[in-house]
């Protein structure tokens, strides 16, 4: 129970996010209207993705310094959960874009950058599956993981800022800061980010424990 408090916290935060996110008062803005509630679901996905991919990179670096099965498994599972968050982020973003920009995919720099970012991590999965030997697979995919993360940073944080974009926060569109006046959004937004990220870490935790147990079983069988 002592070690599980954060799981309970995650559940409580997510229940709060869903309930308050759907029912609470939001600012009435033109075009956005009720879609502003997507802030509680779409934006935390990207925050969660970056954080969980960062966890993956940290474990890849740890693997390179200290090659254990545990570090490799955690890096892999975290990358997979990061991809899951990224896919959900793209889907929620596309749904939102359908009602505000008029189309699911309007060739926006941010949409393109996130699609490319996902391609990088799909390539990571393909790379992993092309090795048979466990140690070689672990080491080389760790190298690629670090390399890919270094390439992802300019893609997600620098390039979209150089070009005009329809996305909130770019090209003169209102970003997160212009909602400053309305603290009611923040009351739900911060718990949402924390809740979704904790959920992601929980999934990584369960999946990597399962994977480590499975490998141990195969070894002994």
């Amino acid at each position: 129970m002592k070690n599980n408090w954060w799981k309970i916290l995650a559940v409580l935060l997510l229940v709060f996010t869903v309930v308050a996110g759907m029912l609470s008062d939001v600012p009435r803005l033109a075009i956005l209207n009720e879609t502003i509630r997507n802030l509680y679901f779409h934006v935390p996905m990207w925050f969660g993705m970056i954080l969980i991919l960062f966890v993956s990179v940290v474990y890849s670096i740890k693997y390179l310094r200290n090659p254990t099965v545990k570090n490799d498994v955690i890096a892999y599972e975290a990358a997979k959960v990061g991809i899951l968050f990224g896919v959900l982020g793209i889907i929620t973003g596309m749904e939102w874009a359908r009602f505000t920009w008029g189309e699911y995919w309007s060739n926006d720099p941010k949409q393109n950058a996130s699609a490319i970012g996902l391609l990088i991590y799909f390539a990571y999965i393909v790379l992993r599956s092309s090795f048979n030997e466990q140690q070689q697979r672990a080491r080389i995919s760790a190298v690629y993981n670090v390399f890919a993360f270094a390439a992802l940073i300019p893609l997600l944080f620098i390039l979209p800022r150089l070009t005009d974009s329809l996305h909130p926060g770019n090209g003169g569109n209102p970003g997160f800061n212009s909602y400053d006046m309305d603290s009611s959004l923040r009351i739900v937004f911060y718990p949402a980010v924390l809740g979704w990220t904790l959920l992601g870490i929980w999934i990584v935790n369960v999946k990597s424990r399962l994977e480590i147990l499975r490998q141990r079983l195969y070894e002994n069988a």
Partner: protein
Amino acid sequence: MLFKEVLYLVKKDLVLEWRQKYAFNGMLLYVSSTVFVCFLSFGMRSGVLDAPVWNALLWIILLFTSVNAIAKSFMQENRGRLLYFYSIVSPQGVILAKIVYNTLLMLVLALICFVFYALVLGNPVDDIPMFLLSLVLGAIGFSTSLTMISGIASKASNNGTLMAVLSFPVIVPMLLMLIKISKNAMDGLERSSSLDELLTLLAINMIVVTVSYILFPYLWRS
């Protein structure tokens, strides 16, 4: 010490290249036949391409050329020679030497490709020095990031496919910048308008070289 090693390894690669002439001539033929295919499939009807199409086509040809040229950089080394290097030089020396060598190779190929392409498909470029600068930066950028990727791919079994899968996503940001710079140069815009992209491109190159320098020893060991 490291500098001497790099110099020596680059010299070795150049001499090998000069003796075999296999990779370079192969790539030359690859470039010219691709350009010619483009000419046949585009140029026959109207004779002149739109500027954006011209630009995009050139960069796509260059991208595929560099992927094919650089994919060889680690595959052509046989096991025994790699083992020999492993015992006498440092991994940092190897990756830096490969990057330098591939950059030289790509510079030559990119310039030849541009000249041939401009001859065959017409030359709508307004600001040629700026366009050449974007070509040079492109050659450097492609070779820095692809060298590391080819090192990774050469360890896997089906490395041809893997090379493309791994490299394209990593190279797309670079390609977008390059296409923008070269488009600005084609339209003869003021040079200051491409400054942002130039700096970002240089920064990406720095990141890639640094990361390759740090990571290659781990790759080398396996």
